[in-house]
């Protein structure tokens, strides 16, 4: 009997390479004659460049070249717009994408101004202070509201405004609905900047092989295929001349798919120009300014309700900080706009956002990608409404859940993938109930909290719900091939950054072709191995590539059976696949190994019959019509020291529904990691800018990633509502853990400190001991 792998807690195939240190990361690439790059970055958030003098740097021993924008000639051009604005009537979108090296003006601290190529990174850094740049500092654009005041300094002078985009989406008629409301809750909500901060920074190594006329680029990208296509176009090469390899990547979380970073454009160019391999590895100081950020938004939102706690409608007007450029289009604010609706029936919705250019690093999606902002606003509004109406916070949620019979559920607005925001499937009430059970809600509220309060301890509970739009198109592909050794290879175009694709895809294939999961070798992230693909983002790897892998494996299974039927001269129906072989049913002695069949399918003599193909191989593609909507609830019990406002999370429970589960072990890992980032986002991590646009905490000593002591043990449970949008029924899970932590913290901390009784509301993220103290001391908003 063959083991079934799909749905099992299978250990990972990739681990041995990672655990022994053999796995190749970009900085591990060593090439003969390799040079090293370092970038001179603007010390100013906003300044005009009057002149640049590189002569002293060029004279330094070991410096091979110094380039500024002037040296790039026609190669200097703004980067591509990755995601055009969705077709929403009346939208404004001002496209201003990043440039490879600043020309005339710098628009955020850290923007690259010059590139030094030297024998070593050490020498390249020695040369940086020897480049003399004459800057004329300009006023920084930091505050979102002040940026929009007429006469404010412009990030892009030619625009005459700092408006990057303005989009309104409506459903029903909120204004009319509000007139009928028994209660309207209206508040301002703040969500400040944070960063993805993978432990591996970015890096690019490029090698030009003049004899083969071929460029090879190792890049910490989440989208190698798109980088290949873009580089070929920019460099005037054919796509076949460019090979992009995204090897093992030390965490991505979104910002490693910002295409194209200046360094990705310049390092290959320099390698060709100098005919020497060039390596650039971002250091942590650079990472804080050179890799994209996320999160800055201000929402003015209101919710209209009936007195029995039903949502009539929501109006939200928000500002989104897009940073100095907007290459990722509107993905982040549209995610905020759409995800706000959550698991609830909202009959009337009126949402308008303005994306604002500021002199800060660029904002692109980072795990959650704007979704958490929407969830924060919705969940907080519900908490406030429940309080005003005298409801239990869970009860108001129950009353507004989209009922299970309402799916597919059309929210009547457009999502980031340009498709209607239609939820494919879901069943929300059981998720909430399970979360309450897991965290021990009733017992806590009835017994523990009163007892702890009597002891003078401040312990509170929170429970929040969310959806996550996942697994959007356009498509991914996969090629599955049985080799003569009997091992099976799977090749796909997406990159992988630790999610376990090497194993999840192997599980899918192992079941279809009947081999041990360890005999399935997955190859991703090498454009010479697979031509097509989009990349790893929007929690789509398992959904989109997974289904392509599944389909290709099924086609290979058919080929195996056909070949075996010829081998045994029997009917396909009489064959069973398993244990790396095909056998005649009921006659185990009549079996042939897959490797033998693979060889027979690729004969060295004779003929491959017309209309058939050699080998046991198939390629397939999958593109979902729209994203699959996952959902969940998080619950937390937290203790706060009422004087120092230091917190201790006593319990953290997650109930998640991401449809069919490929590997529960990997899924748990994804949820754990997401929660850890959510906790960081909610209470530890904040990028603090001063009025001059300078980042004040650009080190890991001051930008606080949660440690093993800050992330609690989590209790996880899953419900399964398969997606009807793909054959495997999968929904994505990559971002879910990170999304609801903000409102969860706000709710639980309010409860712990008994803030509602004091008229104090927590309407901003991140919180911190300092901020809690200020709010509590201040005695209310």
């Amino acid at each position, binding site marked *: 009997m063959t083991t079934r792998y799909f749905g099992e807690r299978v250990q990972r195939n990739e681990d041995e390479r990672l655990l022994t240190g053999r796995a190749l990361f970009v900085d591990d690439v060593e090439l003969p004659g390799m040079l090293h790059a370092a970038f001179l970055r603007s010390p100013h958030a906003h300044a005009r460049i009057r002149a640049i003098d590189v002569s002293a740097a060029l004279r330094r021993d070991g410096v091979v070249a110094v380039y500024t924008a002037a040296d790039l000639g026609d190669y200097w051009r703004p980067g591509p717009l990755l995601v055009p604005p969705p077709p929403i009537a009346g939208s404004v979108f001002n496209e201003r994408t990043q440039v490879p090296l600043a020309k005339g003006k710098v628009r955020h601290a850290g923007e690259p101004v010059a590139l030094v190529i030297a024998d070593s*990174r050490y020498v390249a850094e*020695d040369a940086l202070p020897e480049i003399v740049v004459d800057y004329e500092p300009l006023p920084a654009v930091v505050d979102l509201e002040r940026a929009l005041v007429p006469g404010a300094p412009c990030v892009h002078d030619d625009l005459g405004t700092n408006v990057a985009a303005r989009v309104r989406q409506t459903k029903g008629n909120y204004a009319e609905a509000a007139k009928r409301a028994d209660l309207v809750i209206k508040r301002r909500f703040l969500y400040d900047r944070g960063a993805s901060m993978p432990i591996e920074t970015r890096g690019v190594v490029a090698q030009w092989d003049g004899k083969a006329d071929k460029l090879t680029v190792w890049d910490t990208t989440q989208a190698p295929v798109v980088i290949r296509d873009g580089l070929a176009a920019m460099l005037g090469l054919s796509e076949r001349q460019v090979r992009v390899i995204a090897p093992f990547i030390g965490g991505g979380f979104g910002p490693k798919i910002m295409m194209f970073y200046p360094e990705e454009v310049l390092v290959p160019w320099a390698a060709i120009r100098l005919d020497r391999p060039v390596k650039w590895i971002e250091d942590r100081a650079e990472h804080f300014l050179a890799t994209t950020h996320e999160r800055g938004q201000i929402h003015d939102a209101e919710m209209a309700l009936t007195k029995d706690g039903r949502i009539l409608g929501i109006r939200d007007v928000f500002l989104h900080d897009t940073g100095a450029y907007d290459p990722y289009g509107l993905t982040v604010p549209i995610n905020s706009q759409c995800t706000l609706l959550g698991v609830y029936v909202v009959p009337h919705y009126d949402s308008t956002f303005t994306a604002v250019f500021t002199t800060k690093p660029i904002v692109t999606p980072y795990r959650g990608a704007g979704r958490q902002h929407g969830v924060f606003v919705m969940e907080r509004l519900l908490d406030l409404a429940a309080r005003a109406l005298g409801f239990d916070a869970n009860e108001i949620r129950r009353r507004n859940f989209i009922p299970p019979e309402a799916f597919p559920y059309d929210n009547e607005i457009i999502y980031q993938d340009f498709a209607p925001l239609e939820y494919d499937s879901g069943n929300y009430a059981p998720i909430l109930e399970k979360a309450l059970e897991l965290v021990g809600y009733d017992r806590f509220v009835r017994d523990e909290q009163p007892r702890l309060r009597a002891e003078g301890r401040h312990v509170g509970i929170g429970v929040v719900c969310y959806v996550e739009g996942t697994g959007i198109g356009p498509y991914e592909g996969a090629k599955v091939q049985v080799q003569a050794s009997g091992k099976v290879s799977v090749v796909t175009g997406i990159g992988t950054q630790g999610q376990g694709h090497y194993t999840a895809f192997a599980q899918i294939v192992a079941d279809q072709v009947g081999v041990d999961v360890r005999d399935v070798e997955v190859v991703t992230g090498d454009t010479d191995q697979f031509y097509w693909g989009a990349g790893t983002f929007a929690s789509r790897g398992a959904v989109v590539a997974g289904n392509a892998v599944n389909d290709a494996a099924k086609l290979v299974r058919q080929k195996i059976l056909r070949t075996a039927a010829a081998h045994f001269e029997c009917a396909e129906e009489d064959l069973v696949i398993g244990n790396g072989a095909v056998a005649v049913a009921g006659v185990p002695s009549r079996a042939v190994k897959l490797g033998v069949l693979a060889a027979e399918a690729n004969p060295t003599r004779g003929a491959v019959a017309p209309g058939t193909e050699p080998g046991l191989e198939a390629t397939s593609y999958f593109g979902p019509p729209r994203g699959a909507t996952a959902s969940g609830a998080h619950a937390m019990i937290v203790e706060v020291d009422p004087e120092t406002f230091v917190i201790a999370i006593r319990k953290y429970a997650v109930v998640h529904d991401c449809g069919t589960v490929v590997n529960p072990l990997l899924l748990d890992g994804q949820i754990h990691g997401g929660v850890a980032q959510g906790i960081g986002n909610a209470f530890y991590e904040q990028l603090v800018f001063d009025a001059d646009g300078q980042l004040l*905490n650009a080190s890991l*000593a001051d930008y*606080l990633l949660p440690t093993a002591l800050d992330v609690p043990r989590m209790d996880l449970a899953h419900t399964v509502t398969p997606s009807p949008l793909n054959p495997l029924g999968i929904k994505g899970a990559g971002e879910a853990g990170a999304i609801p932590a903000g409102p969860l913290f706000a709710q639980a901390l309010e409860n712990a400190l008994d803030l509602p009784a004091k008229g104090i509301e927590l309407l901003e993220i991140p919180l911190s001991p*300092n901020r809690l103290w*200020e709010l509590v001391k201040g005695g209310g908003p």
Partner: protein
Amino acid sequence: MKPAPFRYVAADSLASALALKAEHGDDARFLAGGQSLIPAMNFRLAQPAVVVDINPLGELDFVRAAGAGGLRIGALTRNRTLERDALVAQRQPLVREAVPHVAHPQIRNRGTLGGNLAHADPASELPALMLALDARLHAKSARGERWIEAREFFRGVFTTALRADELLAEVELPEPRPRTGTCFMEVARRRGDYAMMGVAAVVALGADDRCTHARLAYCNAGETPVSAATAAQALVGSRIGEGQIHDVAAVAQREIDPLGNVHASKAFQRHLAGVLTRRALQTALDRAMAGR
């Protein structure tokens, strides 16, 4: 983030290390644990011309009893040793209590007492301990040697009384008075971070339970480690009660002058100082009453 060029010399004797420092003065830096110096060099915030590695000087790595209750600790003693050493735990439990708050195990394996004190980061725990424990610091140079009282040693942010040719060689912690209780507490964003505020409290009691001696010293409370001498002095001579602890904490809050940072405003730091002073004093008092 690579250091600028410099000349590295591994010291083969204390004399040669001191001679090099005498020769190069402020252009030379001693490398002990390097856990503050090397990050600063990697950020190119520090660019010494010469780095004199004193790690080979094993004679600077010791913990010794001094008299019946005192301690002499060599400058090259690793924080990890302070954390594990039985004599330190017995004679100066305050040190044992505070050292685990210094960064993380990997850092404590390298970081040294002398390096930490000579670096004089006002946010660091150990300088405040030196104030609380009335430590004396032994400086050596090619010209000679001298003892410096801890309260004279710390002069500003990253600035000490050490002269350009001097090496901090040793620290002496005097014998605690009878019936001494101590407590170190800090509030940091995460374990191992520099504290938003930290306090070391020392209380000694006479046979009549009246306070005979008290010290309150703070980290991250100004440009140097800060001693709240007026607040501490107010305790001496009295039987310390809850009300007095409250009053003394209020005095201490006014004696410190925290600088504020991205994690804690000056006002919050001052608030924390009040909270921690009350808690640490009470604990130190309880420990003194309990005989330890």
